[in-house]
């Protein structure tokens, strides 16, 4: 696959894996409203992922459609950010993961709307409206939990420390990112840092949470080197299609 195709596939996988993670909450959220809320965010991400996967398949030009890419690749072929495959934990940890992601993704979608890849720009211009709304949802909950009871504060503070090391990968550039930036396909990863930092610092302050110190990271999900959690997620996501190829209902 060309760097262009790989760049789009990374985006697609990041959207898809987080949609699958959030889907695990359906029927389990602490209140019906949050069950619907997390499912709606998952649905938006899944719709965005389908468009991106189909586009990546077209760029690859080997006849793989969205289903072939989602269901028939192995763990090391998935190129999602390591952050999004981290387990849901409790509701607080899911909200922290979502907030850290939404703050990044809404800046990313805004930048991608000006991509030299017209299809990617169209997908992102639409998705940008949705990711802004997700950010509002996750920010609102992070403030309620952080500035809530001692218990809710302690839980989201702990989640923030645990998830923070995975945020380094959001801004880390490799050859694929540099090639995409040079061709105007996507922003250089570190170009999103200012917007992300501004959002994170503002909301963490309102949530009475302390920003953790920068931490080294040892995972490179976007290069196919994942934490131990992705394999289990894929096993569940892919089992039906692999047992019954092409099944529809």
């Amino acid at each position: 696959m060309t760097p262009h195709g790989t760049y789009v596939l990374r985006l697609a996988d990041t959207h898809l894996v987080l949609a699958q993670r959030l889907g695990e909450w359906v029927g389990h959220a602490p209140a019906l409203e949050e069950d619907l809320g997390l499912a709606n965010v998952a649905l938006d991400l899944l719709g965005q992922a389908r468009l991106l996967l189909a586009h990546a398949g077209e760029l690859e030009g080997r006849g793989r459609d969205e289903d072939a890419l989602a269901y028939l690749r192995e763990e090391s072929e998935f190129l999602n950010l390591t952050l999004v495959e981290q387990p849901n934990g409790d509701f607080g940890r899911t909200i922290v993961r979502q907030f850290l992601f939404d703050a990044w993704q809404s800046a990313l979608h805004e930048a991608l709307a000006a991509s030299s890849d017209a299809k990617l720009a169209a997908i992102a211009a639409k998705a940008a409206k949705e990711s802004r709304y997700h950010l509002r949802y996750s920010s609102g909950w992070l403030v309620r939990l952080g500035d809530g009871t001692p218990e809710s504060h302690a839980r989201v503070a702990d989640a923030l420390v645990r998830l923070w090391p995975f945020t380094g990968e959001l801004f880390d550039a490799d050859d694929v990112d540099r090639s995409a930036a040079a061709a105007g396909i996507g922003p250089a990863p570190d170009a999103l840092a200012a917007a992300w930092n501004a959002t994170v610092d503002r909301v963490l302050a309102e949530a009475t949470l302390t920003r953790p110190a920068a931490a080294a990271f040892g995972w490179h999900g976007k290069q196919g080197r994942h934490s131990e959690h992705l394999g289990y997620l894929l096993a569940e996501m892919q089992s039906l299609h692999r047992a019954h190829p092409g099944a529809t209902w």
Partner: protein
Amino acid sequence: MSALRALAGADATATLRARVFELLATVPDPEIPVLSVLDLGIIRHVDVRGDGSVEVGITPTYSGCPATPVIKSDVLAALAAAGIRATAVDVLSPAWSSDWLSEEGRRKLEAFGIAPPAHAVASPRALAYAEPVVACPRCRSVASERLSEFGSTPCKALYRCTACLEPFDNFKCL
């Protein structure tokens, strides 16, 4: 003669196009059936081709809206039932906005008990944090509060009127 024939052809095209719009006005949104697909603003073009078939461009409201494939097949079925050969294509750009809801659509929503969307969106960044003023579709009070950003479909949020105490859906501003 050829000019006359061209004129007649243009006439037939306009008639067919008008007929397609009449039919589209009868195709309901599967999730909010008081709205037609025209009210919703998701029909982006109707092109009559030289062979008398029709291409309808449809844009999704939300990237993941599960009603999108249903809408497409409902549109094609309605046209086929009227003897019109048609294909449907996806249009992604420009992205759908709740501002594209027709005025009639907004009235129908309110009569159905769903508060219509706030008018957008001079600054898209403001959308993320601004709280829109939402009037209760039953008593019209603007003393309402948001219960949840998300409701029973991707395009709605859940509100409650603090004057008449009724909960209601708000069509989200996008």
